[in-house]
């Protein structure tokens, strides 16, 4: 009897085991060991000091000029300019024409001219405006830095407005793109001309430039405020941007990193292909490419977006940075810091404290230079700079500037280190752009700002 019970138990076990095995065989999936991602839970984001940006935050217009019957106006306050930019982003672009021919500003009593500080790829418009059909732009490789808003020429009462995208350097040549926006949007944009409270008068460089013909299309004019420029001057203090999260983001988690210091006391982090040199204020990262294979074939837009994403990945926007240049030949993107809506220029002491530079090779960051400080204002005072008229007159008298070479004139900030090293001054000054780059109109004159408070 006992033997029989034993046999029953064994039989049950065997049946159960065969069932288990059958199920196991049936449902067997090879376990491909997935590598544990993010083994390093080290912080890769500048949570406290940095932020994320979108394309529209990085390519803001720096001047908006309203034309009315031969007079020119611009916003007096940055707040209004910002509001106009927000309004612009709601414009719905329709009937795109990628080969519109030349822009004709004649016979238009009212025009809005929007200047961007950098040459932008035409693909950026899908980030700046509402666009229904992006397909048309796919094959287009063109740039623009100015946008003109004009009445649509046909018919007396305009039912729509045209936007012309123009590359001002290629003056006289064809516009890059033309699109239509609704009449409501166009009228809203021109509304500000009805009551000029918010506007200040501008003068056109071509009007005071004696004997010089303005360019054929009138699309590359330089405008300066006619009256004296009232502007804030700042004292800035620096805050530290921790380098650690950026390092964690740049160095892959499985590589060994050696730490050392060089003769200047800079910290160096190094692997067999990467090197990061870092001191209190700046960092410089370099990725060594030991061969010449596979160059990037990125368009300027792709390059710009890639660089933005790479900086976003560690929340690297520690101040108000904006796109300064994209050089697709060198696969290099540069961002410049803005303060109070104006670009900040560096001198030898403040070199690389207001610039972020990224370059690429083989699809990866090859070089990344940036400041490790961020700035905040601790004191603001008002300064008054020369009027646009005076500046044009003074430039005319300068022997080292060829009048015809001038490509732009504007007030920008100079970032200057004060004696104690942690405090910086932000001094507004007139700058002129020629073929050799930006230079100060009054290089030695610190008293150009007559302080009033």
């Amino acid at each position, binding site marked *: 009897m006992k033997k029989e019970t034993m046999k029953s138990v064994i039989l049950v076990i065997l049946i159960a085991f065969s069932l288990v095995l059958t199920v196991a*065989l049936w449902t067997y999936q*090879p376990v491909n060991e997935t590598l544990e991602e993010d083994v390093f839970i080290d912080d890769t984001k500048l949570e406290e000091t940095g932020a994320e940006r979108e394309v529209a935050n990085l390519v803001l217009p720096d001047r908006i000029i309203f034309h009315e019957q031969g007079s020119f106006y611009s916003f007096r306050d940055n707040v209004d300019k910002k509001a106009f930019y927000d309004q612009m982003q709601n414009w719905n672009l329709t009937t795109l024409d990628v080969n519109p021919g030349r822009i004709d500003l004649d016979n238009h009593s009212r025009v809005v001219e929007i200047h961007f500080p950098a040459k932008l790829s035409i693909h950026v418009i899908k980030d700046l405006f509402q666009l229904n059909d992006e397909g048309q732009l796919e094959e287009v490789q063109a740039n623009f830095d100015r946008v003109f808003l004009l009445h649509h020429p046909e018919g007396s009462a305009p039912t729509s407005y045209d936007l012309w995208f123009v590359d001002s350097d290629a003056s006289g040549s064809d516009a890059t793109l033309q699109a239509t926006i609704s009449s409501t949007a166009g009228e809203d944009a021109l509304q500000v001309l009805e009551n000029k409270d918010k506007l200040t008068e501008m003068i056109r460089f071509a009007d005071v430039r004696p004997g010089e013909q303005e360019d054929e299309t009138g699309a590359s004019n330089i405008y300066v405020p006619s009256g004296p420029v009232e502007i804030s001057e700042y004292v800035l203090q620096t805050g530290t941007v921790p380098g650690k999260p950026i390092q964690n983001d740049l160095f892959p988690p499985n590589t060994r990193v*050696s730490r*050392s210091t*060089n003769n200047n006391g800079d910290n160096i982090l*190094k692997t067999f*292909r990467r090197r990061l040199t870092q001191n209190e204020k700046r960092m410089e990262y370099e990725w060594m490419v*030991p*061969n010449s*294979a596979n160059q990037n074939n990125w368009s300027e837009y792709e390059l710009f977006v890639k660089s933005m994403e790479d900086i976003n990945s560690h929340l690297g926007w520690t101040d108000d940075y904006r796109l300064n240049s994209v050089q697709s030949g060198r696969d290099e993107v540069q961002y410049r810091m803005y303060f109070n809506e104006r670009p900040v220029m560096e001198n030898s002491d403040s070199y690389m404290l207001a610039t972020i530079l990224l370059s690429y090779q083989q699809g990866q960051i090859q070089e990344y230079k940036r400041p490790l400080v961020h700035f905040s204002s601790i004191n603001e005072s008002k300064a008054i700079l020369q009027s646009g008229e005076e500046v044009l007159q003074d430039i005319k008298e300068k022997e080292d500037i060829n009048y015809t070479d001038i490509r732009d004139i504007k007030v920008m900030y100079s970032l200057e280190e004060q004696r104690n090293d942690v405090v910086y001054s932000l001094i507004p000054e007139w700058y002129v752009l020629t073929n050799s780059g930006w230079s100060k109109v009054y290089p030695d004159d610190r008293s150009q700002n007559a302080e009033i408070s």
Partner: protein
Amino acid sequence: MQWGQIKTLFIISFLILDLFLLYQFLNKQGEDELGQISTVAESIETELEANDITIAEGAIPKDLPEASQIESKSSHAFPEEILGQVEDMDDSDKKVELLNDNQVLKVTLDDPVEVTEETLQDVVNEMVPFSSRYSYWGWNEEEGAALFFQATNNQTIYFNNNGYLLVNIVDGKVTGYVATLLSFKEGEFSGGGSSTSEIEIEPLSAIRILVENGEIQPGDEITSMSIGYHTSYSLAYGEENSPHVFASAWKVTVNGERNHFVYAIDGTIIDYIDEGTFITDIKSKYNLSEGREVQSTANESRETN
């Protein structure tokens, strides 16, 4: 039939069934593990065959050495024990110089020693007291030098300015040598984590990377492969006293005449290595005599005598 007998019969049949199922299950598991690796290897092999690229027998090492990243010490001066050996060297027939804060040893023989390919190793062993630290790289007759690279963990450190032995050979005679030596940190890496990792790029994958980039052409034969160390950074000015980080790199010899290097960690091809430049740089930096110069200095000395 008795119920008891039926049970016995069932027990036997289920036992057989279970054994069969178990066998099947284990088989399946084993297949999957091996299958993935061998299919990749097979596909590369077919690819190579299609491109008419052959691999010599025994060219691929059977036991994969452990790939790793290693860090040298920040001081590149010769360690004490080597300096002791240098001091003990008989300088009656040669000039012994320690340069760059004991980082470089330069020895110039008064009477050049005749050397052939066969005797080279013996001559060097006799001449350099710490020659065991280096492994032979090759004799470049064009540039008049035999190169030895430092080896660590039985692996060669390819082309590094802080770990070589260059024997200057003029007209078949050794006139002297220049040597540098890296020191390595013992134990764990300063970066934390383990210092060794599995080789990420298998030998066949390294070959495929070279083929895809046109470095290996149809008709080529891979004659040997070995793993060593390399770094893409030489020490910049102002950083002379900082460590090197080396990563494992495959050396792939093609047709027995040219070498290609691929990092075993990430599969990057290293194609800027040039033996000729490496030798001429060292020679000009440490003023090593060329054939013509030797003769002219010899003539000069004769004249002064």
